[in-house]
């Protein structure tokens, strides 16, 4: 098969994946709306657990009491979970998501074969591969903890991103320019995408955490499905765990990028636009980790930092790639 046929099949698979993701998205949303109707028991048990947890927190000047609090909430959450089994919608949505993901990975592989290199040399390929990695990480995280309630957020994001990429960023397979030919680039970009996946899931949890906090404090009356979600303390613990893994990958991304820049341009750091944003993202998440260890900054403030960090990651990928000049300008679009 020729390069062009392979690329065409790859695009077709990408469109199919988008369609299935879109159905999964609808199912996830239906699941959330379903939860609103079937929560009395879960609601009651979560309610009962919450005051205990918050008391422990409020009194928790010492590390000790805080720990006890988190154990309590974990137990309370266990009760809530056992009451609220996954709905049929959610199970269907997750299954559809896995099917879409397999097709999606197929599109990535075909594109790679068509181009005869890693499929991440321009905006389209980066979106295609990056979203596949985000979904992959979401699926893997679900083996560790059940975070399927984030499904609507993940599929919504992927449909948007992949749809935009296929319709607006699509470019034919082209050889990479000489500076982009290096295995450090492969390492740099693939690890950056891994980090982005962890940031995306961790950031999603931080968003839910903020909503959950508002609900626990009685400031949020809508969105009753939140009652079926884990407590904000549990959400925060999961979120920070994932973001810390993302941060480790991002640190490596920064270093691999510097090594690549050194090979390609003779300097490992030159404050190029893309380098500046990679640095900004790194510093924000270092700030996040510090915030988690600083009195008065756990909870709401650190969650906001996680969200700001994720926003910076997305800004770095979209706006910076499309509208900024710099050595890394590799969107592959001629409008640049």
């Amino acid at each position, binding site marked *: 098969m020729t390069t062009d046929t392979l690329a065409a099949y790859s695009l077709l698979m990408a469109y199919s994946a988008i369609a299935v993701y879109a159905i999964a998205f609808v199912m996830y949303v239906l699941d959330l709306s379903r939860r609103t109707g079937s929560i009395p028991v879960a609601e009651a048990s979560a309610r009962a657990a919450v005051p205990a947890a918050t008391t422990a927190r409020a009194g928790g000047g010492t*590390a000790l009491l805080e720990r006890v609090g988190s*154990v309590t909430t974990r137990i309370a959450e266990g009760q809530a979970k056992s009451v609220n089994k996954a709905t049929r919608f959610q199970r269907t949505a997750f299954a559809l998501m896995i099917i879409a993901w397999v097709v999606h990975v197929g599109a990535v592989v075909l594109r790679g074969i068509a181009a005869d290199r890693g499929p991440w040399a321009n905006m389209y390929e980066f979106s295609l591969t990056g979203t596949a990695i985000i979904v992959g990480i979401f699926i893997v995280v679900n083996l560790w903890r059940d975070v399927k309630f984030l499904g609507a957020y993940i599929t919504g994001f992927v449909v948007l991103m992949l749809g935009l990429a296929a319709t607006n960023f699509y470019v034919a397979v082209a050889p990479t320019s000489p500076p982009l030919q290096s295995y450090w680039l492969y390492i740099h970009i693939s690890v950056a995408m891994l980090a982005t996946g962890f940031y995306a899931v961790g950031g999603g949890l931080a968003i839910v955490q903020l909503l959950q906090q508002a609900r626990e404090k009685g400031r949020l009356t809508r969105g009753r499905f939140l009652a079926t979600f884990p407590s904000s303390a549990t959400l925060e613990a999961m979120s920070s765990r994932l973001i810390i893994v993302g941060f480790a990958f991002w*640190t490596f991304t920064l270093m691999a990028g510097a090594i*690549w820049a050194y090979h390609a341009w003779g300097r490992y750091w030159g404050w190029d636009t893309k380098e500046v944003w990679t640095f900004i993202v790194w510093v924000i998440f270092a700030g996040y980790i510090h915030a988690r260890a600083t009195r008065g900054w756990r909870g709401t403030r650190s969650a906001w930092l996680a969200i700001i960090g994720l926003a910076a990651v997305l800004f770095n990928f979209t706006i910076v790639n499309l509208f900024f000049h710099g050595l890394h300008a590799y969107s592959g679009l001629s409008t640049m």
Partner: protein
Amino acid sequence: MSRSDLSRSDSDAPTSFGARPDGHAEAPEPAPGIQQPRLGPVGWLRFLWRQLTSMRTALILLLLLALAAVPGSLVPQRTSDPNGVIQFQQQNPDGYKILDALGVFSTFASPWFSAIYLLLFVSLVGCIIPRTRHHLQALVAKPPRTPARLERLIGYTEATTAVDAPTAVAEGRRVLRRLGYRVENYPLPGGGDSVSAERGYLRETGNLIFHVALVGILLTVGVFGGFGYTGQRILVQDSTFTNVGSDYDSFIPGRFSSVDDLQPYQMRLESFRPTYAFNQTTGTWDPEDYVTRLSTRTPGGGWTKQELKINAPITVGGTQIYLLGNGYAPILTIRDSHGTVVKNEPTPFLAQDANLTSNGVLKVADGLTDSTGKPTQIGIQGFFRPTPPAGKDQILSAAPQLSPKADVFLSVYIGDLGLGGGTPQNVYTLDVAKLKLAAGRDPATSKTVGGGPIDLVRGQTATLPDGLGTITFSGIRRYVSLDIHHDPTPLPALVFALLVLGGLLLSLFVPRRRMWITAVTGEDGTRLRYAGLARGEDANLEAAVAEVAARHRAALGDPGDPDGPDDPRTPIPRM
């Protein structure tokens, strides 16, 4: 750190892990009133120092650092994009003045950016030193005393056994040691025995390595960087470069280096062969690969052939050589009115677009006389196209490859080149102040003068105006532009970066735990109690306590818990 500081961070308390900076979520809350300095200047200084080295300040400075870097990405920077800065100035002169006064075009060297990161690093050093000292003490200290109220800790489990307390504790000690814990026995005040265990000192070690290595990177770049230098040179095929200051087109020494540090070596460009691929989407030719062959020679040695790849520099004589760009250097042979060759060498033309439409300048200061016999200088402004376009109305080169029809357009200026003034001149620009256009198109009026520009393809000759002689487009060479530099920082920077990464991984993923087993012999056997404590978040602590309990019971030969090993009978902790 004074004795009282140490006790403030209560290193002896079993439920606290070592020194934490002020404001750390796990540091003891300051007693009310302690924050108010009621002292003289020394007290104030101490107060300020403690503020600067607190967790909160570190966090605020980190966030400020991220924020301060943003303008540096929105506005072109002098160091990475000098042309962008000039463009900005032309398009937006008023905005330029304000932003320039604020130093935004050199954000990363600006006083405000420097102030933030210097404060951050002072804070960092002030934070590392006491923690390092404290950690060194912790490394040789014994695990802390067994807390009295074990049931308030994580994973609290009870069990009974038939063996006596000292035997049970001795066995527990063995189990914990095998799991990598450091152990210490403590008799319980009310009778009975206990073992206290701790593991994961590498967590704090890693954290300290991480932060120290950050300082290392800053010092490497800030201090070592000054010993480097960087220069550029355009090298035409078959010509030779010698690594001395005068042979560079431009040379920038570092703070602590000069041209005297250069090691003399020679380098010759043997050939440069690019390959291009046609991009269907954009309709342009994209470079696919560059094959650059160089020969180098160090003093006393012979020529050795080397290949320069775009991602793989050549290292020679303490410098590294990178390929920056490439282009064409037409050979324009100038003869005087008697046919004597006055100039005959390749002139590098600078590429203006991806298809290598190029501009170049040729200056002839000596050897030409006009029709009256008066010595005259000429300057030639040239325009070169490797592949002339098919359409007559198109101007720019249609492809970057060299075609047989490659042509030059030359505008000839006569008069004074202005070389005598002593001011160094850029070889790529022509100062037309004292020159008169004799043949070509006047850039100001667009009128053609003297029959218009001289248009030549390879092998063709034309006469110069004013009976000066002739000009022949006699050949063409490729050239490469090279970045030649000496930078002593990459190796130490890499070492520190690896320490940063290694320290980070240790500090994020090694759990630091304390574990206790107590044994009290009573009427109906010995009562065992297990519990643990972790530093930072540790989702697996309960499981770890359960594992210790299970292994211990197995080692004592006790049957498993009636509820099975899966359920370590974690009671709901009392509030």
